[in-house]
């Protein structure tokens, strides 16, 4: 598919029928979590869509987000790369290395100025620019340079979206998110550690289809995927309603699929599509495999207490603080009582001189 070619023309040239195109469109609408009634609009938009250049930067990351992308089945990573986008720079996947790799990035930025999509995974350390460099360039500089002419930025993964694990207390490297640095570009946060692959591709598909960013929630995430909590859409929700909870891993409740709230599940406060899309072509999702949600699509989820501490238990620290408070309270109480006693004594003394 040439750069100036529309997707409709490209598919047509590949011998794909209109029927096949419509199938493609309804699958794409489903992927974008759009209602089936939107297929018509998707078709109209996709027909005229052009293959965007994508520059994917990896900063303080673990490559889990890229790994996740490769698990995408709709579209598959290969059809994404071959048909839908032009992935011009991506550390882990690209053939070129060193100068060649950097040259590819620079060329893509130049040729597609103002039109390319910048994808970022990983956080950016601002404690010291040398905490993370590529080709001798600090992440901060590379991000600013690459963002300058981008059409939009997709922050993939919780690190890029919200700082993620490097940002976790005490944040040794001063890691920050993309939106902490770039303020003048539309940014889509596709959070998750890693994000669900079809959510990554779904957002790419949205940009490809409509050339614009989808509707976002207050944390910059596409509402289509992050609009409802895991808990709201969890198949174990009826057990929660009935008050049936697994009390321990591998107990009878756990085996029968009872709610994992008491084992620390963060589903109620986590917004993501795991419960509906599930992972790896619908195979399962964490709750489906017996472990509570750890809340990985939420900002600072690393610092919200143990993954096994129920939400309701709070994060109030140790009992020592309460013992200290008890001691202090008792001491103040004793003090006030003693002061009150001496006040009474003075009043009794005063009585001697008082005539009634």
């Amino acid at each position, binding site marked *: 598919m040439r750069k100036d070619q529309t997707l409709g023309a490209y598919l047509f040239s590949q011998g794909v*029928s*209109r029927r*096949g195109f419509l199938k493609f469109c*309804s699958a794409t609408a*489903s992927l974008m979590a759009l209602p*089936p009634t939107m297929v018509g609009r998707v078709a109209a938009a996709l027909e005229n869509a052009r293959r965007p250049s994508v520059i994917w930067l990896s900063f303080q990351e673990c490559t889990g987000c890229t790994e996740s992308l490769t698990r995408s089945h*709709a579209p598959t990573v290969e059809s994404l790369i071959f048909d839908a986008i032009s992935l011009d720079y991506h550390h882990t996947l690209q053939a070129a290395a060193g100068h060649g790799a950097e040259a590819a990035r620079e060329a893509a930025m130049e040729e597609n100025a103002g039109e390319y999509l910048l994808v970022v995974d990983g956080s950016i350390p601002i404690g010291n620019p040398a905490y993370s460099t590529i080709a001798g360039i600090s992440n901060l500089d590379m991000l600013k340079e690459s963002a300058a002419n981008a059409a939009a930025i997709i922050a993939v993964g919780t690190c890029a979206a919200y700082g993620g694990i490097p940002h976790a207390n005490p944040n040794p490297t001063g890691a920050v998110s993309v939106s902490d640095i770039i303020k003048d570009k539309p940014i889509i946060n596709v959070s998750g550690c890693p994000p669900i692959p079809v959510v990554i591709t779904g957002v790419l598909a949205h940009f490809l289809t409509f050339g614009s960013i989808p509707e976002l929630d207050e944390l910059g995430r596409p509402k289509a995927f992050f609009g409802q909590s895991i808990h709201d859409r*969890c198949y174990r929700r009826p057990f929660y309603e009935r008050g049936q909870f697994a009390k321990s891993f591998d107990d009878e409740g756990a085996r029968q699929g009872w709610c994992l709230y008491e084992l620390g599940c963060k589903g109620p406060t986590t917004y993501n599509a795991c419960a509906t*899309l599930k992972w790896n072509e619908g195979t399962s999702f964490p709750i489906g495999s017996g472990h509570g949600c750890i809340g990985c699509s939420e900002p600072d989820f690393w610092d919200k207490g143990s993954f096994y501490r129920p939400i309701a238990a709070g994060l109030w620290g140790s009992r020592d603080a309460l013992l200290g408070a008890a001691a202090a309270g008792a001491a103040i109480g004793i003090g006030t009582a003693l002061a009150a006693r001496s006040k009474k004594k003075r009043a009794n003394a005063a009585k001697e001189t008082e005539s009634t």
Partner: protein
Amino acid sequence: MSALDTISVRVEASSGNVRPLLHEIRHALQRVADGGIGTTIDLGSLPLAPGEEKRIEELLGSGELRAELDALGPTVLQETRYAGVWFVTHRNTEQEVVARFIEVTRVPELLLAQEVDMQRAVHELEKQLEVN
């Protein structure tokens, strides 16, 4: 220990969404039967418990008509036991399921020959005639 303890109770995982789905299908079907427009339900948007999708499939069963479409991977359009209710499964070229729908309509639109395709077919038939 009471006698109740000896009765083994099996609680099936259930999202509680299967019955409402069937109700929705029923109403949609009534609309189509009354001459109204069809409805498409994206199964990917429903939170289903493990095994529930299979249960839905079993509940709907399979009817008289089954069509296979080969475009960007196979798609199976299976009419269910209930006329006018179709189970549509799209797969990609790697046979991975990319989307599943329940369509309530007389004929899924995907089965109709498309005008563009027919134009191309006319064109190609002409070419064929020229060759021979």
